[in-house]
């Protein structure tokens, strides 16, 4: 395992303009990051709005705060300038389900324009249901059934054309940081996976083994309960192999190997005494490593204050580099295996995770628990209880509800990005629209709409549309027109 290949250092990064995002990604790669995750402006990206959408114009100062504003394939080209994507593992964004097809099609179009064979392109998509429908519910979003169709389209497209690309990544992280506990996170992740697999089996376009290979890339949250998180990752691998064997009769080694990205819990990074978060980041990272993660992101020490400063990002790399190079942690696979405590805990977590999986199935399956709000209810109840235990002091958080004295000799003020990106983004948008062939763009939008209205895979039409420089907001208009909006079970 790590003896031949250490885990991938894989950080989420980006803000402001495409130039600024590219600069930060190159900074991280130069400082030892071994893959990169593009972050998008959430006001525009999550909603598939261009910057001239009235909802965005009303909050124009916010644009670019949480990620770069990337409205067309040209913006992708700007971000990726100077980055050898043929040999660098990339994540083009698209965490939110309706954003996934757009982000992937743009990134793949950049690769094509550079003459890179898509069959060799390494990287991962996300299109995560936990983020989209549970953790970070947006104002407008395609319904869950449409999301399922999009993800099946992406999985099938990758199975056919892109063997080195992980098409989607189920991010239990987003469920866990919304309140699901360890076994609930696991149970829900696999309840999500069977929705994808059952749908692809029903469609019958690719083999179930290929489908399983596409679905077996997940992300988990690693938090401050070190032993439980190690147990969770270990149980996750076992459950995936068993699920495939028992439910789908799949015994293919490669398909049964769960590939795990771990991310340290953002919610456990505290606002007071932010340097304490370097210690928290190290401990959470350690849980991921002892649990055998394939890639790892460590939240910035200023996570509770703002998006990461350059220094916070550098420290997230350094934590991982110290663990990889100075500790001998890479010497052995599954170092906690055989410990009576870890083995017992792993068995317990697994048992309870299957029970929760069954509970979701009894509520009509994963998508139904999102549509009905049942899963939100479970997560909110946990959040409330956790917060109550901090408020009443029964759970101690250093620097927050205990040991509050602070002699840090300098201010950590949070990252301050520009609030004038909206104007530049509007200029770029108008330039794309005036310079592209209006006729070709309109034709490709019609083709996309036609694909959406039938059961044709949307990805080829998406890529043609991106190459014709159709913009993000226009894609959003097509989706909204054809599929309508998800009826949220919480007020947004």
């Amino acid at each position, binding site marked *: 395992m790590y003896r031949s290949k250490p885990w991938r250092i894989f950080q989420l990064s980006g803000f402001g303009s495409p130039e600024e995002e590219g600069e930060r990604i190159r900074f991280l790669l130069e400082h030892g990051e071994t893959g990169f995750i593009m972050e998008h402006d959430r006001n525009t990206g999550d909603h598939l709005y261009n910057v001239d959408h009235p909802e965005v114009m009303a909050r124009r100062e*916010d644009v670019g705060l949480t990620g770069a504003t990337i409205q067309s394939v040209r913006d992708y080209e700007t971000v990726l300038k100077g980055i050898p994507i043929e040999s660098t593992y990339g994540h083009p964004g698209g965490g939110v389900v309706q954003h996934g097809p757009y982000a992937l099609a743009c990134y793949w179009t950049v690769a094509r324009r550079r003459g890179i064979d898509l069959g060799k392109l390494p990287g991962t998509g996300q299109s995560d249901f936990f983020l989209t429908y549970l953790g970070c519910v947006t*104002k407008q979003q395609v319904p869950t059934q449409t999301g399922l169709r999009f993800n099946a389209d992406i999985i099938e497209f990758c199975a056919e054309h892109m063997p080195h690309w992980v098409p989607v990544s189920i991010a239990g992280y987003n469920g866990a940081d919304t309140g699901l506990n360890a076994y609930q996170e696991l149970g829900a992740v696999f309840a999500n996976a069977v929705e994808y697999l059952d749908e692809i089996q029903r469609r019958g376009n690719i083999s179930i083994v290929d489908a399983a290979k596409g679905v077996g890339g997940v992300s988990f949250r690693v938090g401050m309960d070190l032993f439980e998180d190690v147990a969770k990752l270990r149980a996750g691998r076992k459950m995936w192999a068993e699920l495939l064997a028992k439910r789908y009769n799949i015994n293919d080694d490669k398909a049964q190997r769960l590939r795990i990205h771990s991310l340290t819990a953002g919610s456990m990074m505290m606002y007071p005494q932010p340097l304490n978060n370097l210690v928290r980041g190290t401990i959470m990272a350690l849980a991921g490593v002892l649990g055998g993660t394939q890639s790892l992101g460590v939240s910035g020490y200023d996570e509770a204050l703002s998006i990461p400063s350059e220094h916070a990002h550098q420290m997230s790399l350094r934590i991982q580099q110290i663990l990889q190079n100075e500790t001998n942690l890479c010497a052995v696979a599954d170092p906690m295996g055989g410990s009576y405590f870890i083995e017992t805990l792993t068995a317990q977590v697994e048992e309870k995770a299957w029970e929760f999986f069954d509970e979701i199935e009894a509520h009509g399956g994963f998508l139904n628990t999102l549509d009905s709000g049942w899963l939100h209810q479970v997560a909110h109840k946990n959040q409330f209880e956790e917060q109550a235990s901090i408020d009443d002091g029964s759970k101690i958080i250093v620097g927050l509800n205990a040991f509050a004295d602070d002699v840090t000799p300098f201010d950590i003020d949070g990252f301050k990005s520009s609030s004038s990106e909206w104007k530049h983004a509007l200029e770029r948008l108008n330039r794309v629209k005036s310079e592209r062939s209006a006729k070709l763009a309109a034709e490709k939008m019609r083709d996309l709409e036609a694909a959406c209205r039938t059961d044709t895979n949307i990805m080829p039409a998406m890529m043609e549309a991106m190459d014709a420089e159709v913009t993000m907001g226009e894609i959003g208009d097509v989706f909204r027109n054809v599929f309508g909006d998800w009826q949220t079970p919480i*007020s947004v």
Partner: protein
Amino acid sequence: MSALGKKILLAKTGLDGHWRGVSLVEKRLQEAGFLVVMIGMATPDEIVSAAVEQDVDLVGLNVGGHIEVVHKTVDQLNERMVGVPVFAGGAIAPWAKKELEDRHIEVYPPGSSLEDIVDAAFRLCRINVKASTLKIEAQINPKYSADGAKP
């Protein structure tokens, strides 16, 4: 009307869907006896119009973005609803927290205790009660029925 006879408007100024903090605050304020009008993601115009129409006693803003939008909202609010207090929460950096506090907007960053937030609501609505004297039971959000069906 609520047990306390006081109304609080809660809104998210940004389109960034981090709901964890604001839903905890919503639930706890309801349990403390406030009538909470939660309008979700809203523009400055929408927030101010809702505050005026609902004639609220306090406005709570969940900030997931730059604070210029908060300034814009508070400026408009001050024109149309003189004297209505505002408090804010969310990932507000220390420099931004100070800027808002300078214009008398109380700020509750991540990790703030819900009891402190409820106390702030009592104080800003001029109710002479302390959250610590209330017995508040954790309960499931009443928006959802027991079997998770939509209301």
